[in-house]
């Protein structure tokens, strides 16, 4: 009764105020590469870049840390984007032909992206060019003219409409229909055919009155907007894909659907040009695919650049995603791993300059952004400081390491620098440099580790807004995989022509799924690391500043412990390479522990001070002393009835195959029986009657809704033996007088095993402990009666605070734990949180989340929340993500609910599964395969973009100069 009252009347005003100072929920920034990009734009004056996506998002990037995000109201694909140069404004065209004007506005010194205006073209019945006024059916291309005050819209019907940009209103009188253009075209070219949609619109850099219009049929027209007449006409006959107007205006380039491009001279009199100066099919003579976009850039040094996408020979390389860069005699075919969305060059756009002088080429692909330095010979790639393709191989796990010591940070950065060839000092640095990052230098270094399907672990700088790649560790080199020969064969088979060059790092194909990384643990004080994978491999690695060549010690641990009647039908273990192997600078493997059977590792933990690593699979858990390289303990957690765990994942695949086969059989059977029925008219009638009868009671169909069985978990549920968490602690397990090393393991069926460890203590001052065997004795076994999976275990010290990490206290980086008062252990299951006293186990506090809320725990973490009001007030709380995507925060050790927020959509299962909390109340989760959303539960510790942009747009002055036509 009392308990109840406390819970309900918990609205203590002081506590409420404190909660506001401690907790606040914000989704702060999206890291990684935007999912499904669809449009690209660049503002050469502000040097900022915009990427639009298929879900209607607009993201603007400048210098590292300068980021703006906007979202269209409709989740419609952004098809085109155009910056109003220097104004910090962006015009976007969506798939539904609506136009939107975005502005970067400053509030309190920080810039934000906001939608200012939108324009939905009036949809009228009838076609363009037919009787009646031409209607704005579907916008195919947009061109900004007159310094961005007016926009020309090319449509599917062949008309060009004009729009006043500051107000986003249509300039009714100025519409240029295809009929008007056809009047200037010779009769024999006209031949009754329409010009087709407007495919390209290009402006003249120096003469804003001239517009180059390209029609799908091939006709190119230089239209004089002031004189309302065609200055010049080019009678092209090839279906047009794209156009580029050289900066002097004397040369045009057109690209075509047959894989050819043509160069036209605009200086030849006023009569229509019928033949281009040059027409070539670069990858001919066999049929080629269309050249979708072509750019022409001239250089002071002579020799212009022609850059185009597509145009590959249809039969042999039709499936490649290529951008070709041609300068004089040099041709490079950039071979990308994903579809090309768009590309631009960074070059001079001042009208008075004579040359474009392209500095860099930026190519937006479906899965990454690649920037090439066009000034350095060989056109090397420029490493991107952000927009990293997180998913270059699928992410299988992630971990966050907070407060990384400066020394380790420097070592990881240097290992990473040695990994990627460093650009020469003369080389171009990142060309997109707009805006200023106003965020303070992060107070501490945060490292995000992502484990990938291909056996790599990537280290990311997660201290700030821009997620920067630091270092990549590959574990594949330790193992023999099947796919290695295939690769070298493919390399040899490739011809010299076209001159392909592999660019980018997106590689979604994994050599061997067994290499997949399941768990990663890094000790930030000793630079030791454990990487555990899908085939039961547990690797202990150590950071080395020099390359080395050494053999890796291999041991295997049988987790079945002679349990009989089980046979593993899953994948085989990975076979390690024997003998000394060369290892580059960085994390080098020292010990490989192989779990048997080779099931995926489900939990792992490392205690560098004791040189112990604990690991668990669906069969049991083991403890390994990696200093003496010998196993200490193996325990089987399998329930005798659990056959599923034994057979491994492949048997389930088999049953899936079986069910597929069965369903095919069923389909075939129904076809056969259908024929039979057709033969018999009588039965046909019966069938029809039966169908009618079925239709007559449709509520019968409704009466079979989804139903759920109410049945408590029993001990013999399958996969009950899966080890879900492992934990090391120096605490009181056996008696209250002596504390010592302990290891804790929690399983899927609510069992907790606690072992007292006998670890020989190091001599004072010595780093390594003496060479004596480590012993483990089972001290306690706790069975949670609700049998829900144990997701986390943590020991709380006498003051109710979680124990520090190994070395944290001894190196004065954390307050030493209170070893005087009574310790307690916090056990978090998927349904309840409980705190038990130690060493005598008695229940102290608990919170039954599922019984109260009906939601289940997916992720938990202990986090420290600092107060915004008071510098040194902080509380340690339990953060928890539920299966509904809500985040709850509970006090520790009281386990009182503090706050809860809805964070992830409950349907977003991969997002919920990928969530990782930091030690200071932030978190990450995947919003797409390539993007992490960063969120913050702390009112104080927030990492969000704070930036400014120097914008000089004429504003009202512009509007005065170009009054809106009515």
């Amino acid at each position, binding site marked *: 009764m009392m308990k109840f009252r406390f819970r309900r009347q918990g609205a203590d005003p002081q506590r409420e105020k404190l909660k506001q100072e401690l907790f606040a929920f914000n989704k702060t920034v999206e890291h990684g590469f935007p999912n499904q990009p669809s449009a690209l734009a660049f503002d050469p004056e502000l040097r900022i870049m915009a990427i639009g996506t298929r879900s209607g998002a607009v993201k603007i990037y400048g210098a590292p840390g300068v980021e703006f995000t906007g979202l269209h109201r409709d989740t419609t694909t952004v098809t085109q984007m155009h910056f109003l140069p220097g104004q910090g404004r962006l015009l976007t065209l969506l798939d539904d032909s609506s136009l939107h004007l975005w502005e970067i506005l400053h509030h309190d010194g920080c810039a934000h992206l906001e939608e200012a205006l939108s324009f939905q073209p009036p949809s009228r019945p009838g076609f363009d060019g037919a009787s009646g006024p031409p209607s704005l059916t579907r916008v195919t291309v947009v061109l900004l003219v007159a310094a961005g005050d007016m926009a020309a819209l090319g449509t599917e019907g062949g008309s060009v409409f004009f729009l006043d940009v500051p107000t986003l209103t249509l300039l009714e009188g100025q519409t240029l229909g295809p009929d008007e253009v056809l009047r200037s075209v010779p009769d024999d070219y006209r031949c009754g055919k329409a010009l087709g949609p407007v495919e390209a619109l290009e402006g003249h850099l120096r003469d804003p009155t001239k517009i180059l219009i390209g029609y799908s049929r091939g006709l190119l027209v230089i239209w004089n907007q002031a004189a309302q007449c065609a200055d010049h006409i080019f009678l092209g006959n090839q279906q047009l894909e794209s156009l580029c107007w050289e900066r002097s205006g004397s040369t045009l380039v057109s690209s075509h659907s047959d894989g050819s491009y043509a160069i036209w001279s605009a200086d030849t009199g006023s009569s229509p040009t019928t033949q281009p100066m040059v027409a070539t099919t670069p990858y001919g003579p066999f049929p080629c695919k269309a050249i979708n976009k072509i750019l022409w850039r001239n250089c002071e040094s002579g020799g212009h650049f022609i850059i185009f996408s597509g145009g590959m020979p249809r039969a042999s390389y039709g499936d490649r995603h290529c951008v070709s860069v041609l300068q004089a005699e040099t041709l490079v075919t950039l071979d990308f791993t994903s579809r090309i969305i768009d590309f631009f060059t960074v070059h001079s756009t001042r009208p008075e300059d004579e040359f474009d002088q392209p500095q860099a080429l930026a190519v937006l692909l479906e899965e990454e952004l690649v920037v090439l330095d066009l000034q350095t010979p060989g056109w090397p790639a420029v490493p991107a400081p952000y927009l990293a393709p997180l998913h270059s191989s699928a992410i299988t796990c992630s971990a966050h390491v907070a407060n990384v010591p400066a020394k380790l940070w420097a070592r990881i950065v240097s290992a990473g620098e040695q990994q990627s060839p460093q650009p020469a000092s003369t080389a171009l640095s990142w060309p997109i440099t707009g805006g200023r990052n106003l965020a303070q230098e992060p107070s501490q270094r945060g490292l995000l580790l992502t484990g990938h399907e291909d056996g790599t672990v990537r280290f990311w700088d997660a201290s700030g807004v821009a997620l920067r790649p630091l270092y990549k560790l590959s574990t594949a080199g330790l193992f023999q995989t099947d796919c290695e020969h295939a690769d070298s064969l493919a390399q040899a088979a490739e011809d010299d022509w076209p001159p392909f060059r592999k660019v980018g790092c997106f590689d979604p194909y994994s050599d061997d799924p067994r290499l997949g990384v399941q768990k990663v643990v890094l000790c930030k004080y000793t630079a030791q690391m454990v990487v555990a994978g899908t085939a039961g491999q547990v690797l202990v690695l150590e950071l080395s500043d020099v390359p080395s060549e050494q053999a890796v010690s291999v041991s295997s641990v049988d987790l079945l412990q002679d349990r009989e009647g089980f046979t593993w039908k899953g994948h085989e273990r990975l076979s390690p390479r024997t003998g000394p192997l060369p290892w580059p600078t960085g994390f080098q493997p020292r010990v490989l522990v192989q779990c048997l059977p080779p099931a995926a590792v489900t939990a792992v933990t490392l205690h560098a001070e004791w040189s112990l690593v604990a690991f668990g699979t669906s069969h049991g858990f083991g403890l390994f002393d990696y200093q003496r390289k010998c196993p200490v303990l193996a325990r089987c957690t399998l329930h005798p009835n659990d056959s599923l765990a034994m057979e491994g994942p492949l048997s389930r695949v088999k049953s899936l195959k079986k069910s597929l086969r069965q369903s095919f059989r069923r389909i075939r059977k129904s076809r056969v029986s259908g024929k039979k029925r057709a033969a018999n008219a009588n039965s046909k009638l019966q069938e029809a009657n039966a169908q009618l009868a079925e239709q007559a009671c449709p509520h019968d169909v409704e009466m079979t809704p989804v*139903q*759920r069985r*109410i*049945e408590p978990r029993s001990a013999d549920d399958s996969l009950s033996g899966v080890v879900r968490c492992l934990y090391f602690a120096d605490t009181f397990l056996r008696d209250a007088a002596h504390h010592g090393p302990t290891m804790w393991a929690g399983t899927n069926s609510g069992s907790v095993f606690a072992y007292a460890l006998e670890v020989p203590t190091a001599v004072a001052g010595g780093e390594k402990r003496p060479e004596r065997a480590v012993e483990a*004795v089972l*001290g*306690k076994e706790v069975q949670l009666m609700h049998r829900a999976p144990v997701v986390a275990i943590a020991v709380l010290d006498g003051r109710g605070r979680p124990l520090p990490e190994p070395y944290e206290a001894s190196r004065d980086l954390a307050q030493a734990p209170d070893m005087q008062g009574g310790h307690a252990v916090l056990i978090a299951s998927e349904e309840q949180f409980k705190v038990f006293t130690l060493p005598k186990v008695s*229940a102290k506090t608990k919170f039954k989340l599922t019984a109260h809320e*009906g*939601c289940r725990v997916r992720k938990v973490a202990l986090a420290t929340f600092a107060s915004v009001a008071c510098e040194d007030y902080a509380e340690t709380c339990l953060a928890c993500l539920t299966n509904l995507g809500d985040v709850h925060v509970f006090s520790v050790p009281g386990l009182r609910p503090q706050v809860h927020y809805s964070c992830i959509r409950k349907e977003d299962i991969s997002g919920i599964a990928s969530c990782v909390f930091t030690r200071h109340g932030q978190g990450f989760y995947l919003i797409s395969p390539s993007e992490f959303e960063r969120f913050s539960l702390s009112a104080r510790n927030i990492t969000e973009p704070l930036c400014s942009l120097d914008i000089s747009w004429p504003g009202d002055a512009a509007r005065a100069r170009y009054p809106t036509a009515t």
Partner: protein
Amino acid sequence: AKQTWSLPSQSFHSRTEFGAEFRRFSLERSKPGKFEEFYGLLQHVHKIPNVDVLVGYADIHGDLLPINNDDNYHKAVSTANPLLRIFIQKKEEADYSAFGTDTLIKKKNVLTNVLRPDNHRKKPHIVISLPQDFRPVSSIIDVDILPETHRRVRLYKYGTEKPLGFYIRDGSSVRVTPHGLEKVPGIFISRLVPGGLAQSTGLLAVNDEVLEVNGIEVSGKSLDQVTDMMIANSRNLIITVRPANQRNNVVRNSRTSGSSGQSTDNSLLGCPQQMEPSLEPEEEDSDDEDIVIEDNGVPQQIPRAVPNTESLESLTQIELNFESGQNGFLPSNEVSLAPVASGPSTEFETRAPDQKLLEEDGTIITL
């Protein structure tokens, strides 16, 4: 094989027989003590300390009645006139049919049956008359505070032998709201597993609407959430339903309002909040106590760190007690036994008006 002895009124004598063995001893009538003590005494007297036995006595009508809790023990003591004849059988060989109120009237030779069990042993049949073995599997609770259209059912789950046995589904029901009748989503019982607990209680039926689970309203919660809540509370599940069949409602004259319609639910809104306090302590103390196995290998229940009032210890602990090997580690063991047998004991009370007198006097057990 039975004999009577006359006794002084201050104490009474007891004659026990176990198999062919007879023992005779005396007890203080005014202070019989607890059944547990008496049971221990019997085991001691017969030198059978570790044998589970059934204890019975012959009442004034000559019926063989069981002694297995404090109440019927006290009743038995009160009937000693002055001798109390007590019969002890080994549990595994017990002939339960010997017990009963009219056993001696129907079959004169019942006692010989007990003594020579292999003579004409009947087929073993289901034991329904041993109060100690009674255990609640379900109950209707809070009838006095709930609207009559609602039913609050408590299901007790013992081990895993019998499933709870029901399914729930999404559906919609009609509620009376300030804006008139409104169709709102609801959770309904969709199926009962034949032979399952839910079906065998007869308190739940298909299409009953589930309104609360352990005092928490389910409105606004998804089917999966409600499923998880029920499973999480499955050891002591209290669900409030609006039965689809409202004809079995007891119409209480205090509340003869129009609210007892088929599916209107205007009374729900205020009720649960008011109800919750009464549920909460129950829910708290009937907790599923976890088990710890220390290094001696003996499983033990994990006690509370902060001692709570023992009287709130509830029934589900008995079952856990059995699971963990009957070590008698639970201090509240005897206390928690009392409510189990409370049902039968009332019956004895009516026939034993002098019991109160016995309780008031102080007596000691003498040998």
